[in-house]
C-alpha cells in the first residue's frame, strides 16, 4: 500500500452560520467579500509547509488538485503549487490531480506544464487528468456540459500523442486544430508520467481507464463504505474487460484523524470535520449536475458522484461528528482503530493508493502536523506490506538523482 498526503487547501475563515447566509461555497460565493488575501498569504504558506512536512514524515506522495471559484479549494492552478513543492521536496512524488484538460486551449499547454514539472522535479510527477466537476467546468469556466467529456477525451488523446510522438505533427481534432504539435520540454519519465484519472461514478470513465491502463482514483468525501458501489463498478469493469485486479490501478480518498483514543480524536478533529462538511461542502444544488454532464448510461446506473452525495447528505440537517464517525466518513481514533479500518477498506475496495486528508476544514497547524506525524509513525508501517505481491505500474519511475536547490545544499554543508 502507498500513502499520499492530499491537500484541498480550504479557506479556514468561512463565516459562521455559513449555510444560512450563503447559497453555495462554490461558483458564486463572493470572493471580494469573504477572501482576505492578507490571511491568504499565511494560509498558502502554512499549507505548503504542511505538504513539505508530509514528505519528511514519510508519505509516498503529496497531492494537489484543481478547483475554481471554490471556498474549500484554493488551488485554481495545482501546477503552481506543484512547482513550489518541486523545489522544496526531493523524495515524495508530486501527484497533481488537476489539470481539467477541457478547460485549456490548446490542451498542449497542459502537456507543456506537466512536462516542466516532471523535468523540474526529477521525474517525480503523477499526471492527473480529471474531467473536472460541473461547478469547475460548466459554471465557473463556461464549458459546455453537452460537449465537455468529448472535448476532454480529445484533449487527453492529444497530450498523450504529443508525449509519445518524438517529432512535430498536425492535429485535426473536433475541438482543437494545430498545425504544429511539438511541445517543449518533453517529460523526464518515458514515455510520460503515470496518468491518474480522478473520477466520480461515470461508467464511461471506468472503461476508458481500464482500456488505457490509467489509474482510477475515486475522490469520495464520504468514506469507503459509501464509496463501495463506485469501486465495485470499477472492479467489475476491470473484470469485464479482462484486466487484472491489481489494487495499484485504483486510488481512494479518506479523511483520517489519529489520536490516543476515540475521545481524544473527537477533541482534536470534530470541529474541523464539522467545519468541512457544514461549510466547505455547502454547495448550491443547482450547480452539481449541469445538463449533459452525466451520460444517460450513468444516470441509469444511479451512481452518484461525491458532490451529488454531498447535496443529498446536507440538504436538510447539519452533519455532526457522530454521524461522520458512525458512517465511516472520517476514520478517527487510536492508531489500532485506524489500522483496522484501513485494512477493512483494503479488503472491501481493493485500493493500493490511499490518499489521506490529514488536514481538513479549519484544522490548526499544530493539529495537522500531529495528525500527519502520528499517521506516518503509528499507522503506515503496519499497512506497508499490504498488496506487496502486486507490481505498481502506476507510479513514477524516477531515474535521476534529484538536484536540490543551492541554498539547501549550502545550508547542509
Amino acid at each position, binding site marked *: 500500500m502507498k500513502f499520499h498526503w492530499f491537500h484541498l487547501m480550504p479557506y479556514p475563515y468561512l463565516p459562521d452560520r455559513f449555510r444560512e447566509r450563503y447559497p453555495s461555497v462554490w461558483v458564486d460565493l463572493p470572493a471580494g467579500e469573504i477572501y482576505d488575501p492578507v490571511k491568504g498569504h499565511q494560509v498558502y504558506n502554512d499549507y505548503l509547509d504542511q505538504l513539505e512536512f508530509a514528505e519528511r514524515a514519510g508519505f509516498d506522495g503529496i497531492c494537489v488538485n484543481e478547483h475554481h471559484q471554490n471556498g474549500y479549494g484554493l488551488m485554481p492552478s495545482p501546477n503552481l503549487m506543484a512547482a513550489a513543492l518541486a523545489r522544496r521536496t526531493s523524495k515524495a512524488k508530486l501527484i497533481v490531480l488537476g489539470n481539467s484538460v477541457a478547460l485549456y486551449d490548446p490542451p498542449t499547454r497542459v502537456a507543456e506544464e506537466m512536462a516542466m514539472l516532471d523535468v523540474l522535479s526529477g521525474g517525480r510527477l503523477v499526471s492527473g487528468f480529471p474531467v473536472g466537476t460541473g461547478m469547475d467546468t460548466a*459554471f465557473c469556466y463556461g464549458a459546455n456540459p*453537452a460537449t465537455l467529456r468529448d472535448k476532454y477525451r480529445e484533449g487527453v488523446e492529444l497530450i498523450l500523442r504529443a508525449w509519445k510522438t518524438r517529432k512535430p505533427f498536425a492535429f485535426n481534432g473536433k475541438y482543437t486544430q494545430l498545425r504544429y504539435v511539438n511541445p517543449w520540454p518533453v517529460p523526464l519519465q518515458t514515455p510520460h508520467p503515470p496518468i491518474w484519472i480522478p473520477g466520480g461514478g461515470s461508467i464511461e470513465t471506468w472503461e476508458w481507464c481500464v482500456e488505457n491502463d490509467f489509474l482510477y482514483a475515486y475522490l469520495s468525501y464520504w468514506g469507503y463504505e459509501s464509496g463501495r458501489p463506485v469501486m465495485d463498478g470499477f472492479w467489475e469493469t476491470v473484470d469485464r474487460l479482462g484486466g487484472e485486479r491489481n489494487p495499484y490501478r485504483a486510488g481512494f480518498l479518506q479523511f483520517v484523524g489519529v489520536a490516543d483514543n476515540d475521545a481524544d480524536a473527537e477533541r482534536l478533529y470534530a470541529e474541523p470535520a464539522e467545519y468541512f462538511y457544514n461549510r466547505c461542502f455547502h454547495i448550491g444544488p443547482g450547480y452539481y449536475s*449541469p*445538463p449533459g454532464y452525466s451520460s444517460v448510461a450513468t444516470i*441509469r446506473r444511479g451512481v452518484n458522484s461525491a458532490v451529488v452525495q454531498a447535496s443529498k447528505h446536507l440538504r436538510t440537517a447539519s452533519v455532526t461528528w457522530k454521524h461522520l464517525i458512525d458512517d465511516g466518513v472520517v476514520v478517527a481514533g487510536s492508531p489500532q482503530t485506524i489500522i483496522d479500518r484501513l485494512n477493512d477498506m483494503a479488503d472491501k475496495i481493493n485500493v493500493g493508493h490511499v490518499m489521506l486528508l490529514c488536514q481538513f476544514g479549519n484544522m490548526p497547524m499544530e493539529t495537522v502536523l500531529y495528525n500527519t506525524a502520528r499517521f506516518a509513525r503509528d499507522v503506515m508501517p503496519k499497512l506497508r506490506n499490504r498488496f506487496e505481491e502486486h507490481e505498481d505500474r502506476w507510479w513514477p519511475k524516477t531515474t535521476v538523482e534529484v538536484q536540490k536547490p543551492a541554498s539547501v545544499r549550502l545550508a547542509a554543508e
Partner: protein
Amino acid sequence: MFTTETIRHPDGRTSKVFRAGQGPLVVWLHGPKGIRGRDPVIAELAKRHTVVAPLAPGFADIAELDEIRNVHELALHYDDVLQALGLDAVTLVGHSFGAMAAAEVAAHFPRRVARLVLISPIGLWQDQHPLPDMFGQVPYMTIDTLLWKAGKAIPSMADPADEPNDPVERQVAIAQALTSVAKFVWPLPDRGLRRRLPRITAQTLVIAGAEDRFVPASYAEEFASLIRGAGMAIIPDAAHMVPYEQPTEVFRKLDGWITAKDRAA
C-alpha cells in the same frame, strides 16, 4: 391526436415529426418542454391549422446532437427537415428555445420562411437585463419555478400519461431535453443572433408573456426592433410559458395577425 413520421436527412440521420389538424399549415418549434401526447398548444393550433411539429434534436436521443455542433448546423438541420417535408415559404412558429431556432432558420434561409412568430424568444443577451441562469440558480429538476407563472406546470403539461413512470427514466428525459437546449445556449444564450436578425425577410410577430420572470420584455422589444416590420404583442396574465398558460389568447392573436397579413397580401 397526432400522427408521427420519421424523415431522413441527407447524411442519414433521422428526425421525428408530429402532425395534427387541418387547415393552413404552420410549423411549430417547441421549447424546453418538448412535445407531449396531449400537448395543449398543438391541440389549440390544430383546431384551425395543419400543424407540423419536428421534435428538436437530442430530445428523443442525446446522440442526435453529436453532429450538430453549433447554431448554424442547427439551422441546417431544420432546413433539411423542411426540405424533406417539401415545405417552402412556411409559417414558422417557435417558443422559447424553439423561437431562437426559428429565428436562426429564418435568418439563415430567408426564403424558407414567409411568416415568423417568435413566442418568448431567447437568443440575445442584454447586459442591462441579464437572464437568470435557467440551469444553475435552481436544481434543474425544478426549473418550472422560473418558467411558469404559477411556479409549476399546468396540469396538461404535467400529464403522467406522457411522462415515464420510472423516476430514473423521467430524470433521463429531463436531462436529454435540457442538454439539447444547453448545447446551443451555454453559458449564455448569445450566439450572435443579433447580427443575423436583420437578414430575416419573413413577416414577423413577436409575442411575450407580461409576467415572464425568465426573459424580460426588453428582449421581445429588441427582437421586434431588429427584424424589419415586426409586430409585437404582450399577453397579460402569463409568464415564459405563455402559449401553454394562455393558449386561446395567444392563438387568437396569431390567427388575427395571419388573417390580416393574408388580407394585405
